[in-house]
């Protein structure tokens, strides 16, 4: 047995390519079996007529894709994009300073990073429910507002776009902070010193050195926030109620209560195509230099 093992190892040892395949195989199999195959299945479903009790019937149709071009759905799509973009921008403006401070700190760095990832220790569902308690009419925020005499009536927060945005930003902020932190942490402080001797004041050092060199982190963070935000449904479901539907809710609904799998699949593929287009546009735009231009 061990002789066989020896021989297998010796064989692998002389063949770097075979070794690479051997290392790729388990994870690769997982992705193919549980991601690629279902994805293909969904694509096939999206092109087949709807079955009466869910599922599909044999045949070919484009009706599900055609059905999506309806003001009702397009409005949901538009709202989803607008909110995801807003969420990304807010996360960027909130997250960059946090990442900057963490990257600059020495003694507190580990502790601050720990705080950033701490929310992941509890389920997202539980945390979202907690926000309901915070924001509902009889919730903590309103009871304080009324106790302080700032308002007579409770301010309606729950089931508004505001509540959804609070929830989205809260949920995705760590995904913005961590990549920006990683790129700022790598920034060589002697570059900033060099800029300072060359006459750059703090604002110029940030604009011309820190910001451009942290762009990879900004790009990664933005993608890590924007893409999951587009697909999110839990936040809008719990904090937005029935009125603030996002595309994720639509898809989820088609697969569950509406039992329209082909339409749900078609909607998913439309969103996927749009995400791909948006990301490619973003990656194209971000290559336009930021802060590198010579002052004219």
């Amino acid at each position, binding site marked *: 047995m061990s002789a066989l093992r020896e021989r297998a190892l010796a064989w692998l040892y002389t063949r770097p390519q075979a070794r690479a395949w051997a290392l790729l195989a388990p994870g690769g199999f997982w992705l193919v079996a549980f991601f690629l195959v279902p994805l293909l299945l969904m694509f096939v479903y999206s092109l087949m007529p709807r079955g009466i009790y869910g599922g599909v019937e044999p045949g070919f149709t484009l009706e599900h894709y055609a059905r999506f071009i309806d003001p009702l759905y397009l409005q949901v799509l538009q709202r989803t994009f607008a909110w995801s973009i807003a969420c990304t921008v807010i996360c960027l403006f909130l997250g960059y300073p946090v990442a900057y401070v963490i990257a600059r700190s020495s003694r507190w760095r580990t502790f601050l990073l720990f705080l950033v990832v701490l929310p992941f220790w509890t389920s997202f569902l539980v945390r979202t429910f907690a926000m309901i308690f915070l924001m509902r009419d009889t919730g903590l925020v309103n009871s304080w507002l009324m106790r302080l005499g700032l308002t007579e009536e409770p301010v309606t927060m729950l089931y508004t776009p505001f509540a959804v945005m609070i929830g989205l930003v809260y949920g995705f902020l760590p995904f913005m902070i961590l990549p920006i932190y990683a790129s700022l942490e790598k920034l*060589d402080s*002697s*570059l900033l*010193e*060099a*800029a*300072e*001797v*060359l*006459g*750059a*004041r703090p604002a*110029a050092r940030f604009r*011309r*050195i820190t910001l*451009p*060199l942290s762009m990879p982190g900004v790009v990664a963070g933005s993608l890590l926030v924007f893409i999951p935000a587009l697909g999110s449904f839990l936040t809008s479901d719990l904090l937005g109620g029935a009125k603030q539907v996002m595309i994720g809710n639509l898809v989820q609904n088609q697969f569950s209560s509406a039992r329209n799998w082909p339409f749900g699949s078609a909607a998913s593929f439309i969103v996927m195509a749009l995400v791909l287009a948006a990301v490619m546009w973003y990656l194209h735009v971000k290559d336009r230099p930021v802060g*590198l231009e*010579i*002052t*004219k």
Partner: protein
Amino acid sequence: MTGTHKGTPVVQFVGVSKSFGDVKAVDDVSFDIRRGEFFSILGPSGCGKTTTLRLLAGFEEPDEDGGEVRLLGETVNKKRPYERKIAMVFQNYALFPHLDVTRNVSFGLEQRKTPKSEIEDRVRRALEMVRLKPDVFSKRLPGQLSGGQRQRVALARALVLEPAILLLDEPLGAIDLKLRKEMQLELKSLNQQLGTTFVYVTHDQEEALTMSDRIAVMDNGRVAQLGTPAEIYENPRTASVARFIGESNFFNGQAGRRTGGRWVVAQPDGGSFEVPDHPGITDACQVQIAVRPEWMDVQKPDSIPPGENALMGTVRDIIYLGETMHVIVTVPGTGDVTVALRNEGQLIKPLLWKRGDTAAVAWLPEDCQILEAE
């Protein structure tokens, strides 16, 4: 520049101290740097040389009542680097990786609001000054350059500002020996040609000796000695300076008789040697001297030239170094003494010595460097 201006030192350190917590990195340091001088700050790592340079650049502030740093006659203790008329070349070059060569070099000019029409021309001239062809290199990113080329860009980026003072923090540490020698000569000639004051920090004694007009040798946060390369090499003030600059053999003893302008120094184990008169030597005081290996000779015990100091020992090893040969002689009570002999062609004129021979190390009393206690 007017004559009166020429007299003022460009840089003055007046009793400057800088502590980090309990550690005194720079301890009551004073020196002047003259206009146009190539001034080196030399010392082992942790001696305070980099902190001294950073105080000069403005990255560090002297302690409260920690003396004064003056640039061009003006006290600059509280001034930020961008308010000082200096430029600096960093140890790791610190080129901006996202900017091409032109934009790296023009960075300082842009920050100082130089008219755009002027920038292009000055960048080109700066690149030519450091012998980088602008047409070839101007659009390259730092990542596409070799170490030596990066070094030149860093130099151009500093020189383009036409600073009164150029600070260099071990700029040649990361490039290979041959290129380093070449850059040493180039830096020296730029210093002479531009009239810019160069302040050069290094731990490489040979580099400091090659390039400097004057050297400040630092040790433990203090200036151990300040002088021309020859003064420091030929007359080190303390054992640590002698040890750091070049190689030295050390001898100890007690001053005894004084005859004809010379002291006879008795070693603990019975040997003795003579040293020239020196104000630091008094009757029966402890004397430590250093003698450079190339000022010594190896002699047969029975043929020691009259008037020379000689200590008996055994040849322990012979090291062939090309230009020179090192004969290491173990002298009882002193230890290993290294004698450097000029190589006059081993194939034609082989060395007379071999391991185990009894031999004397001999040197002239005038070649003794009398060291102060530290």
